[in-house]
């Protein structure tokens, strides 16, 4: 894994052009399949500009990989789907404008589950992303490419998006740091929508400090996203005693719990006040999350009509036949499944049974977080309930959905949460989820920094993919 500090140290004696070329060599020789589209020519041009001293900004000369659901002007953006396999956006997402303003080098667009619907990147039209620690295992999803490229030394920073765990899961599976910001902190302008009320773009990096810096760059006011809170973010690490709540309802199998409890016992308890918190609403959270996400998806993805952009048939037909055929051929199975179930949940006679019930659960989940976070500064739990899965292991959709059990409550409430690597079991990384109050990313990152200091040596030793 390459941190910004390490990259900058090398820039003192080597050219940015050579370093970026080395990165592309590694990507092209590698087997991770972390990228869908590379931005090689433009990235090398920018690196040359940097070498001539013509680039400045907070991220000057730093490579960043961008998840392929975030639009990049003139650079193909597929969302992992056949539906958008040749889509060239005519504009930049707000976060991409900010990256460019700060001198970042966008090296490419990362692979992902189709329309961000998945936990393993196996639903991508462009093939599965492989885990840098074991090529037979998944990198997690849906931001699998963003996680894998960091874990596999193919980038220094990456952007992901998180609707129900899509940043935190691959961060956990690839042994990197990933943060889902508070809903509204980062503009969603240019994020291809899946479930608007749940999703946020967020930073992924190889250490806590880098993750914080990337958040500083992407967070802030944007009038083009009406849910944007208009707040800036500055990281000011605070040294103090945190009160930590261990969430009883967020667990895992023996592999994961063994490592998590070891870290709680040896690192968290000796340094901080620790209590156990109960969140009774969480037994409904997974079902509520999927109903809301699928319902919003069914409406959002109605835009793919094969007329203005996206997959189209050679011959126009009558509207219903053309529209239904474009969508049959352009969408993959998981996307169809979610659109159809969302359509069902919103259809006459079922709205009250599913959608409205899910919104009531959302209130209960939010209340549980507010109560627990009144008493505690942060809440912790394992990010994922299991180690990275073998490719093909989660063939049944419901079994896959259930792997999001620890991550989805956070999106229902809109609070921020981060995943940080805490060690390895059977050679595979384990992540800890740290959840905080609305807009208190600073507290989460400060606490994460303390944990990182304690586990750093083990992570660095194993950090050679």
């Amino acid at each position, binding site marked *: 894994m390459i941190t910004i500090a390490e990259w900058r140290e090398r820039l003192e004696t080597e050219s940015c052009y050579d370093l970026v070329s080395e990165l592309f060599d590694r990507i092209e020789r590698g087997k991770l399949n972390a990228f869908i589209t590379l931005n090689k020519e433009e990235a090398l041009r920018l690196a040359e500009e940097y070498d001539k001293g013509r680039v400045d900004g907070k991220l000057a000369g730093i490579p960043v990989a961008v998840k392929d659901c975030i639009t990049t002007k003139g650079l193909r953006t597929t969302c992992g789907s056949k539906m958008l396999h040749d889509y060239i956006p005519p504009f930049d997402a707000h976060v991409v404008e900010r990256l460019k303003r700060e001198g970042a080098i966008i090296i490419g667009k990362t692979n992902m589950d189709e329309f961000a619907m998945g936990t393993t990147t196996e639903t991508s039209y462009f093939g599965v992303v492989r885990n840098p620690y074991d090529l037979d295992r998944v990198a997690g999803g849906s931001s699998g490419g963003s996680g894998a490229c960091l874990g596999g030394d193919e980038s220094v920073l990456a952007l992901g998006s998180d609707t129900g765990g899509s940043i935190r899961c691959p961060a956990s599976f690839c042994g990197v740091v990933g943060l889902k910001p508070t809903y509204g902190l980062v503009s969603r302008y240019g994020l291809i929508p899946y479930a608007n009320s749940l999703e946020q773009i967020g930073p992924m990096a190889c250490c806590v400090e880098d993750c914080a810096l990337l958040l500083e760059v992407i967070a802030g006011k944007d009038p083009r996203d009406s849910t944007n809170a208009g707040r800036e973010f500055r990281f000011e690490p605070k040294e103090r005693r945190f009160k930590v709540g261990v969430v009883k309802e967020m667990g895992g199998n023996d592999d994961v719990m063994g490592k998590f409890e070891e870290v709680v016992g040896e690192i968290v308890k000796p340094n901080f006040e620790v209590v156990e918190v109960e969140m009774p609403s969480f037994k409904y959270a997974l079902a*509520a999350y999927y109903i809301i996400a699928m319902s919003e998806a069914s409406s959002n993805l109605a835009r793919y009509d094969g*007329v203005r952009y996206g997959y189209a048939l050679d011959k*126009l037909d009558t*509207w219903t036949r053309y*529209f239904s*055929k474009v969508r*049959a051929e352009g969408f993959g199975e998981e996307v169809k499944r979610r659109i*159809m179930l969302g359509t069902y949940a919103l259809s006459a006679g079922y709205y009250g049974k599913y959608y409205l019930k899910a919104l009531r659960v959302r209130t209960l989940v939010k209340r549980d977080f507010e109560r627990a976070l009144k008493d505690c500064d942060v809440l912790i739990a394992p990010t994922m309930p299991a180690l990275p899965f073998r490719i093909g292991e989660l063939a049944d*959709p419901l079994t896959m959905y259930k792997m999001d059990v620890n991550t989805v409550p956070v999106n229902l409430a*809109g609070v921020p949460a981060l995943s940080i690597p805490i060690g390895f079991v059977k050679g595979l990384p384990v992540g800890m989820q740290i959840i905080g109050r609305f807009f208190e990313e600073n507290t989460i990152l400060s606490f994460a920094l303390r944990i990182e200091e304690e586990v750093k040596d083990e992570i660095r030793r194993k950090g050679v993919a």
Partner: protein
Amino acid sequence: MITKEDVYHIANLAKIELKEEEVEKFRREFEKILEYFGVLDEVPEDVEPTYQVHDLCNVFREDVPSEPLPRELVLMNAKHVEDGYFKGPKIMEG
């Protein structure tokens, strides 16, 4: 209970053409997933729904005209274009 007819009905509402061989697989999966969603039956009715997590409402901006995207950029991703317009499928038969 979800029947094959239900699956066809949902697919028609969602405007996704299904192949005969997909229907039974979706039917079985939908039944299993919806059965799991049944856990929500016990959620009390007297809880207010949350549509969005912040208290933001009616976010306005100044109504000022600005430069739109140039026409050629708007049309560049469309397959069927005529006289500077998108060309869509017929909305009526005949």
